């Protein structure tokens, strides 16, 4: 349908486009695993670049190398800085891994929706299930929930990776999370390994072995194959798709639903996601 031409009443006072980044300083780099580092980022004058909510993402750019969307792994309850846990797997991430504290990058955001920590998830028992680097987006939620412990019920965290060396944030898991009352941690690795006396086996199998009750809301992130089998396992336990949240990941350039890249069906993952409930995922065409 054609419609009358509207005069553009855009406010010329609007100065800074959302596509323009801020300069961020890397103030700390932790080597988590052989291919994952956690980068702490501050504004040049100190403090955070912006406020965000758990699950939101930001565009991290190394000028001349590239720009890509990463989930913000630190919780908004942290008032000092933001952190990104980044796996080395391409040109940009290879470059980021070569940086040192004091180096500058460019960051814009935050983008996307967030886990509904102040609405649907409030007062719920929470079950976090993550595989490998996918702990990164969940860590933001977990720390938010732990810092607002009274607002949530029981907390179960099931986390697995290929080997003990590939567990991200292991120190925080063992020294902080496992000491909070009402928090149960379940770690697993894919294959036997010297020095590991914990559980061995894939996340979906461990999930079935533990057999959680359905009085929980689950948050599930990981490689597609893990997600598929974990969702099946949860459904076998009696969880409905409305009880399970996840995040989607597609190529993004703008972050604001205009460049067209992350469009699937009527949704733009950068703007309408990355957080979706599985009943919402079901409504999307199968090309994610």
């Amino acid at each position, binding site marked *: 349908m*054609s419609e009358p031409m509207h005069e553009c009443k855009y406010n010329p006072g609007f100065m800074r486009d959302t596509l*323009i980044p801020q300069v961020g300083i890397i103030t700390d780099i932790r080597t988590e695993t052989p291919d994952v580092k956690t980068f702490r980022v501050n504004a040049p004058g100190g403090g955070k670049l912006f406020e965000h909510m758990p699950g939101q993402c930001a565009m991290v750019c190394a000028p001349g*190398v590239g720009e890509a969307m990463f989930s913000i792994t630190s919780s908004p309850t942290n008032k000092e800085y933001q952190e990104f846990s980044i796996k080395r797997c391409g040109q940009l991430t290879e470059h980021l891994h070569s940086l040192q504290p004091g180096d500058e990058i460019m960051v814009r955001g935050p983008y996307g929706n967030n886990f509904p920590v102040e609405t649907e998830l409030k007062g719920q028992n929470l079950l976090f299930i993550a595989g490998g680097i996918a702990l990164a987006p969940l860590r933001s939620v977990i720390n938010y929930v732990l810092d607002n412990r009274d607002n949530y019920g029981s907390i179960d965290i099931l986390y697995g990776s290929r080997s003990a060396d590939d567990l991200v944030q292991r120190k925080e898991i063992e020294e902080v999370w496992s000491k909070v009352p009402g928090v149960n941690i379940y770690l697993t690795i894919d294959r036997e390994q010297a020095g590991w006396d914990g559980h061995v086996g894939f996340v979906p199998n461990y999930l079935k072995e533990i057999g959680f009750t359905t009085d929980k809301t689950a948050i599930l992130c990981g490689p597609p194959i893990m997600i598929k089998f974990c969702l099946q396992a949860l459904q076998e336990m009696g969880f409905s798709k409305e009880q399970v949240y996840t995040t989607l990941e597609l190529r993004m350039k703008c972050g604001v639903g205009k460049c067209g890249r992350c469009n699937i069906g009527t949704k733009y993952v950068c703007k309408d996601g990355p957080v979706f409930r599985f009943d919402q995922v079901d409504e999307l065409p199968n090309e994610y």
Partner: protein
Amino acid sequence: MLKIKTADLPALYERIAQSQDLFLPVRSAGQTDFALWQKDAQVDLDTLKTVKSPKDVFFPQSETLYSCHREDGKLSVTPEELCDKPFVVFGMKACDVQGIAVLDKVFLSEPVDSYYAARRTHGTIVALACGRPETSCFCTVFGIDPAAPEGDVVTWMVDQWLYWDAKTDKGFALTDFLHDLFEPADESTVEQVKTAIRAIVKKLPYADLSLEGWGAQAADTRFDSPIWEQLYKPCLACGTCTFVCPTCQCYDIKDYDTGSGVQRYRCWDSCMYSDFTMMAHGNNRTSQMQRFRQRFMHKLAYFPANNDGVFSCVGCGRCVDKCPSHLNIVKVIKAFGKED
């Protein structure tokens, strides 16, 4: 209603160009496209369709977003200046004006794209009714009237006269600025021309194209159709359709190395390209069928679902004219029409 002799149009162009940039169809190197008016420009109002749509006046094929300077390891970011001077686009057809209305829905929705918005704010659109719609035209299928375009000013070419009708505040301002070039005109002449144009349009080969089954509901019903697999095969993934399209707005953001930093620019991109959705960890559309389907599902199903039924196609027919494999949106619409 006002009018000006077509022989006097160069004076009108010159007057506009005294105070602002004027973009209009110019013939150059054997083809006609919108370009900046200059004294020796070969203005071509006879060619109905420019090869590219004039969308690049508002959404350039390539534009710098900001510059990033590096000195002693320190970065600084300088946003590109926004368009702050008025300009006029003269001779846009009804389909291309609706193309801008479609781009408005993308770029002026929150968060507003300030680069595009600045151009829209400063641009005055002078539309020109289509004297002789062509066989590849099908704008009426999308509710567009080529005899009465939208625009800040609407004009009609009748014999040796250009009829001029201002519609918006911007249009009135431009008309005031040019007022001594015009003489009063009779509406009835234009009404006759409108009737004649509409009579031509009714006889065009695609006039009866049906959009039944498309729109928001198609997002659920047509994605899994086997028709896509039968249709896509001739597609060469050249992206020509997306580049000539008035509504395609997918873009890329890239760096230009300046030696002491980068200029970060955006440029048109195409969902037809195999690396469009490629990430370090994989690609969610690995086949050309998927990419082909995405383009048409977006125009005919997803976009209307998100924009009150407005389609992201304006029936300009450029893809019909330009696709090297004779594959186009009309073929897609017809193929699904047969199915029903």
